[in-house]
């Protein structure tokens, strides 16, 4: 996943009530989407972190 192709990132609700969110929903510029686990050895998550490091980009909290 190319960080330049990311439009928005939002956490998904946790798998169990009271747990932490561990997945983010990444929407790309063409509105395709990917669910990306928040683990460092997932290369898409590395792209998300690079995207989030750019001023103005924020990972939204889950609904």
């Amino acid at each position, binding site marked *: 996943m190319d960080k330049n192709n990311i439009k928005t990132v939002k956490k998904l609700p946790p798998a169990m009530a009271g747990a932490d969110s561990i*997945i983010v929903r990444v929407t790309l510029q063409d509105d395709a989407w990917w669910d990306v686990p928040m683990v460092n050895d997932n290369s898409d998550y590395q792209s998300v972190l690079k995207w989030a490091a750019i001023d103005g980009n924020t990972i939204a909290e889950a609904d």
Partner: protein
Amino acid sequence: MSSIKLKGSSSGDVTITVPAAAGTNTVTIPALTGTLPLSNLDHVTNRQNAKPLVINGDMAVAQRGTSTTGITGGGYYTVDRMKVDLNDNGTWTHTQDTDVPTGQGFAKSWKLDNTTADTSVASGSYHLARYLFEGQDLQLLKKGTSSAEKVTVSFWIKATVTGTYIAELFDVDNSRQISQAYTVSSANTWEKKVLSFAGDTSGALGDDNGSSFAINFWLGAGSDFSSGTLSTTWTSSTNANRAVGQVNSGSSTSNNVYFTGLQMEVGEYDSTTIPPFQHESFGDSLMRCERYCKAIIKEANYAPVMLAHGVTADVCRGAYFFQTPMRAAPSFTHTGNIIRSYEAATALSSATAVSSRFAHSIDWTGSGLFAANEGILITFNTTAASLIYDAEL
């Protein structure tokens, strides 16, 4: 050193030579009639890897699909394991193609077709075709030690633009690289290239599942990557020295680049000594690819996708278990309509619950379609659809 010279039956001769030796040594020749395959013996006895280091080097597997248009950025698009890094160097279509070099045993190639040209390459532009390795798979290179192995990369290329191209080995863990120029001599003609690289005594590769090592085939490079002196020995990466002299493959919409037969061998070989390509069965190659990508494609109407259980009237949770554990917890997407069996064909929406290397659970949502704790079969509908799990490097 002593030798025995045997005259040929009509001309020439063969010399058998014994180097300096200690003690008494015996070589037993088998009691068989035939010809020793000396020209191939070295790699047969010395190849350290049981399977090819490059997975899907014959471009046979393309789980994501056989054609993607409108490519302007990096990623994996068609042929498994084959990646591009692309920034501001035209628009491309990738295809798994049947144009292959004649008589080499290949049936598929990876085609990169320029559809919007970049006639004035900006300084920061780049375009690379890449193959990435996990560090734990290349410990046999002994990189970063005094015993570091030489590496030879061989591949077939067919390109419209002739001239100088740059192949590069890149150590991701230590940001070190070595480049080598090669020439595409004839336009739109398959050519085999064999490029040998020195071993690197600095910078060990991580013994883990991370992205450690890359073969990079430059296809376009702005001055940020080409304004220096080509780095032909292993060194800390300096961008300006990585792709000096690289032609611009994206200069015209008439341009194509094809690759197939990609192999990487431990050791130094040339065009006459390079071991033959190790062909794997499609099934073996697919299984190795599935460590990095698993695609489930709709092949039949209402084909099963996974089992699930009802959580509420609106949500059920299903799971898919990977036959091959993935490299890392994968990313997930699906396209097309997914439905519950024996219900109105209401498309379900999905959200990943948990992703791991071994299995993946999904919450499927459809208003009023479920009951708590009931068993549910999730299926495809009647139109094209797919589920993709991606754990690429």
